[in-house]
C-alpha cells in the first residue's frame, strides 16, 4: 500500500499538482492561464470541473511585487465559475493563487500567471 501511495504521489508531483487528494480542478480561466492580454481585465474568472463550496473557496491575485490586486471576496456563480473583481492593473505579470473546496469536501489549490500589456 505504501508503495502505491508513493507511486501516485510521485505522479502528482510529476504533473505539477499542488494538492494531492483533490477533486475540483481548474478547467480554464479568463484571462487564460499563461496568456498575455493587451487591455487590463476588470475581473478574473475561473471555471472549475466540479461544484464549489463558496464559504471555503478563495482566490488571490498578486502583482510582481507581491501586493494583492484583487477586490477581495470572490463570487461563485452557476456552472462552477468563480469571479473576483480586479483593481486597475498597470502592464506587468500577475500571479493567481486559487484554493477550492468541492462539495465532496476535498480541497485543491493551484496557481498560474497572466500578463497585461504588450510582450
Amino acid at each position, binding site marked *: 500500500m505504501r508503495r*502505491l501511495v508513493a*507511486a501516485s504521489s510521485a505522479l502528482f508531483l510529476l504533473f505539477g499538482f499542488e494538492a*494531492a487528494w*483533490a477533486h475540483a*480542478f481548474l478547467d480554464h480561466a479568463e484571462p487564460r492561464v499563461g496568456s498575455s492580454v493587451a487591455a487590463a481585465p476588470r475581473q478574473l474568472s475561473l471555471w472549475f470541473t466540479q*461544484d464549489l463550496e463558496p464559504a471555503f473557496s478563495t482566490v488571490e491575485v498578486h502583482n510582481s511585487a507581491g501586493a494583492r490586486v484583487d477586490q477581495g471576496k470572490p463570487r461563485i456563480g452557476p456552472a462552477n465559475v468563480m469571479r473576483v473583481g480586479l483593481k486597475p492593473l498597470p502592464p506587468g505579470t500577475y500571479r493567481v493563487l486559487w484554493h477550492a473546496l468541492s462539495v465532496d*469536501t476535498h480541497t485543491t489549490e*493551484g496557481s498560474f500567471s497572466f500578463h497585461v500589456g504588450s510582450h
Partner: protein
Amino acid sequence: MFEPLMLARTVHFAAAAMFSGLTFFVLFIAEPVWPRALGRLEPALRTQFVRLGWTMLAVSVASGFAWLLLLTSRLTGQRLLPAMSEGAVWKVLTQTRFGQDWLVRAVLALLLAIFIKRLLPLRGWPSRRDGAIAVLLSAVFMASLGWAGHGGANTGTPGLIQVAADALHLIAAGAWIGGLVPFALVMARALRTRGEAWKAIAANVTRRFSTFGVVVVTVLLLTGLSNTWFLVGGFPALLGTAYGQLLLLKIALVIAMVAVAAINRLVLVPRLQDAAGAERVLGRMRRNGLIEIAFGVAIMAIVGALGTTPPAAHTQVQWPFPARLSAAALNDPATRTEALVLLAAMTAGTALILLGVLVRRVRWPMLAAGSILLLLALPWLGMFTVEAYPTSFYASPTGFSVQSIAAGEALFLQNCSSCHGLDGHGDGPAAKDLQPPPADLTAGHIYAHSDGDLFWWITHGIGDAMPAFGATLDPTGRWNLIDFIHANADATRFGSAADAGMRNAFLAPDFVVDCADGSSPLMGDMRGRILHLVFVGVHTVARVRTLEPTAIVVRLDPTISVGGSFCSADDPDVAKVFALYAGSSVEELDGTEFIVDQLGSLRSSWHPGLVPDWTDPKVFAQVVETIRRTPSAPRAAPGHIHTH
C-alpha cells in the same frame, strides 16, 4: 493510511449500515418466515436486536460528530479545539453541502431512535405503517451518505445518475452487510436453544436471506458498474491507479462474501434435515455469518479509504504489466489468418471445457480435448499482446493545442531533428551510423502507439541509439513534442488526402477564438457544427466581405481589422501550426481556408487559385454539404488532465 478522518468515516458508514440492515432484516427476513405459532420474537433475541439497534445508532451519532469536527479542523487549518470554539463548525454546518447533509442525517437519527421501539415491539410485530416508515427512514439514512461524496460533486445528468446509483448501492450494501449481524444472532440462538422449531427457523431464515441476497447483490453489481464507469473510466485505470486497485480489492471481498453465502445456502441448509449433524451444521452457519461480517467490515474500511482517494478518472494510470492486449494482429493483413485460427482454437477449447463441465456423460474426454487445444494455443498468445510500459496509458494534458504543437516543433528542431530529420522521416544528418536506425516519425506505426508509449520512449530512450530526454525536457515539453509528432504525421498525410479523399480524419489542432459577443471559446468546444477557418493576411482582406458570419477568421497580421460578427484569432502559433498542414510557409498561408467537420476532424483545405473555387458561395455550400454527410471521427483528443 489510517488518518482519523478516514477512521471516523469508516466507523460511521459501518454503524449506519448495521442499523439499517437490522431494520431490513426484521421486516424482510425474520417476520415473513417466523412461525405464526410463536407470534413474536423470542424475548432474549428481541433484547439483543434492540441493544444492537441502540448501539449502532449511538456509534453512528458519535462518529458523525467526530467526522464533522475533524473535517472542520482540516478545512480551516485549525487544531480541533479552536475549530470548535470559533464558529467554524457552524459555518461548515450551514454553508456547505456536507453540513446540510449532516443536519438531515442528525434529524434522521433522532427519528430512528424514536422508531426502534415500534420496529421491535414487546408483543407481535410492527404494524405495516410503522414498518414502512422504519424502512424508509433507514434507507434514507444510508442513501444520504452519498450526497456529499464523489458522485455529488458532478453536475448535469451524469451527476444525477451517479447520485441515484450511489443511493441504491448504499441502501443495498447496508441491507446486506447490516443484515449479517442479526443473522448471526439468530444462528447463535438456534444453536443454544436447539429443538426442531429452531432448526426450521434457521433453515428458513437462511433461505430467505439468500433470496434477499440475490436481489441485493444484483443491485450492488449494476450500481457498482455504473459508478465504476463514472469514477474509474476504463479497464487500465482499474489496474493502474490506487483508486482502481482498492476497488478491485473490494470487489474480491464481495465475491468472497457471496461465496460464503452460497455455501450456507447450497451446502449447509440441505444438511439441516439430518437430525444427527444438525448441531454442527448450525455452528458452521453461525461461523460463516461471522466470517461474512468480517469481510463486510473490511469492505467498509476500503470504502472509507476510497472516499479520500482521488477517483481514477482524475489521475494518471500506472500500467503494472510489461505487455498489454492489442488487436493489431487482427488488423494487419500479414498476420490476420494466423490470428483468426488462434482465436478459433481458443474459442473451441473453451467451449469444449464448458461442455465437459456441464454434461457429466462426456466430462473427461471433453475436458482433455479442450485443455489440449488451449495448451497448444498458449505459445502463440503473445500475438495478441504488445510491449507496454508504466506510462502506456498516461493521458496527455495538452488538449492538442496549437501552443503545445508549436512549442513541440521548437523542441523537435533542437533535440530530435539531427537524427529523425527536419521533417521527421528518420533521415537526419546523424542518422546513418545509428543502430537501430532512427524511426520514421511520419510512418503508419506512429498511429499504433499510444501517447503514453511515446512518452516512455522520449523519457527513457531506446537501447543505445536513442538517448533519454527525461532529465533534459520537463514533462510538459515531452507532451508538447508528442503533439508535434502527431501533427507532423497528420500534416504529411493531410497534404495528399485533402483534395481527393476527404474521408480521412485528422484531429484539428485546438485554439482559442475571440467572438463578437465577448465570449472566447476553444475551437474544440464548438464541435457539432462545421467550422470554416479562413486565414486572412494583407493580400486577402477583401475575402472577409464575402464570408458567411459563422466563419472563423485567423488574422495573420494583428493590425488587420475584420469587424462584423466573426470569431477570430491572431495568435501566431495558429498560423505556424496550420502552415504545417497546408505544406506552406506562414506567409503563403494568406488566403488559405480549412474545413473542420462536426466531429472535430480537419477535412479539407483550399487556397486562392485552386478549383473548385470556395469563394463561389454555391460551390462552397456543396463542399460543406459533402463533408456534413460524411462525418469522420478523429483519434481521441488528448484528455483533460488539469494541471493548473
